[in-house]
């Protein structure tokens, strides 16, 4: 018998809550081209030390906005009660600042919509045992 696994959070299944910032398919937001793509790849080197997975694969990066050399990122943590928030934001900022063409970086920690496991990449979800 298939186990009754825990339902995903209501926010995950509510299309309004997911919105543009929470879509499981991040391709419309995290485009692979240009500086935005470089920023995304740089953020892929920022590792959550507790689990050894990067913040993009964990689904913590909600949005990247690039205007000329100015980069704005919205990201979250798995919980607003996490003491690693400051540290990961600093690491993320440092990675982006090292990119050529970047003149200014702003990283905002947001808490809406709340993070949930559906935001992880397929590889990350597989590592933790989620069914495909």
């Amino acid at each position: 018998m298939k186990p009754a696994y825990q339902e995903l959070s209501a926010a995950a299944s509510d299309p309004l809550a997911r919105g543009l910032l929470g879509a499981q398919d991040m391709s419309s937001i995290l485009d692979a081209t240009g500086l935005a793509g470089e920023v995304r790849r740089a953020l892929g080197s920022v590792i959550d030390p507790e689990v050894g997975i990067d913040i993009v694969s964990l689904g913590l990066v909600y949005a990247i906005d690039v205007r000329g050399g100015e980069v704005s990122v919205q990201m979250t943590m798995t919980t607003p009660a996490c003491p690693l928030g400051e540290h990961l934001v600093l690491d993320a900022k440092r990675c982006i600042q090292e990119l050529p063409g970047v003149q200014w970086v702003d990283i905002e920690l947001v808490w809406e919509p709340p993070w949930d496991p559906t935001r992880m990449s397929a590889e990350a979800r597989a590592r933790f045992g989620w069914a495909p």
Partner: protein
Amino acid sequence: MRLGELQLRRGLLLLAAAAALSAVLGGLARLGLGTDWGDARAVDHGPLFVLGVFGTVIALERAVALGASWGRAAPLLGAMTALALLLGFRELGPPLAGASAVALVAVNAAIVRRQAVAFTWLMLLGSGLLLVGNVAWLVGVPVHLVVCGWMGFFVLTILAERLELSRLAPKPRWATSTLWLTSIALTAAVGLSLAQAPLGPRLLGVCFAALALWEVRFDIARRLLSVDGLPRYAAVGVLAGAGWLGVSGALLAAGGLAAAGPHYDAVLHGVFIGFVLSMVFVHAPIILPAVARLELPFSSTMYVALGVLHVGLSVRLFGDFLPHAALRRVGGLSTAVALLALGLAALWSRRRVSERRPTA
């Protein structure tokens, strides 16, 4: 983060380290390995470690998580508790510890208002047990019963953090419910213990054992054993800690809690060294950079410290039960050696960071 804030956090950690050193010397004195300073601090060994060291560090971590300046009151009062005990003002320890616990409850309550979910409520409940324990200490409840509140605080706080991380992996609905029911039973057990009901410590032991099983079954540590580096190191420490929580739980459930003696020694050190200190060891490379911008990259030499910690605790418990005073002493001394080894591994790790940095 403003420079003043950083210096404050580092100062608090330095004071906690001084308290740890003093507590270790006090502990060694209780094992017959005395120094002048240690002999004078022997009676404060428990409160120094529990409140001055672990309590301050946990309060600092929570205050950083909250991000509000008033939250600093919790670790500041914890550090003042440590300072009072270090300087010999023992009568100030309980009221300062009580005030620190009130502040920590307030921090955790604010975090619940920010995100009211199972693990934040659990953390609030844990800090409530610290407050109850510290008030009991203040009003003169025997320390061997007060420690039930202190143990309850650490167990629930750590389980709450592990519950939060466990969201990364699927688990059945009943897993969180089970954790909650056990935590409520644990809370009742602490109350019974402080009221000197014989059932209290035994029920506490059953709860510890149940929570240890929960950890082994649902903690993501099992999945992280296959990940090289820091995640594996942390996973080893977490699972080993769960093992010791189970051992202490079994001892409590079977034998209750004596006021002193080998059984008491085994129960307490199973929790505070085997469970709590193991968590501190494996989370130092995560928390120190996060809280105090002290880079501490993982190094495989840290396994040496972790190994000495757990093997030494095993030797201590053998010494408790045979009984064999020399084994107990060696086991106790090994905790000090493990702390020293961790310090050396940290220095080695930071030296490698400095060598990798480009020079001007």
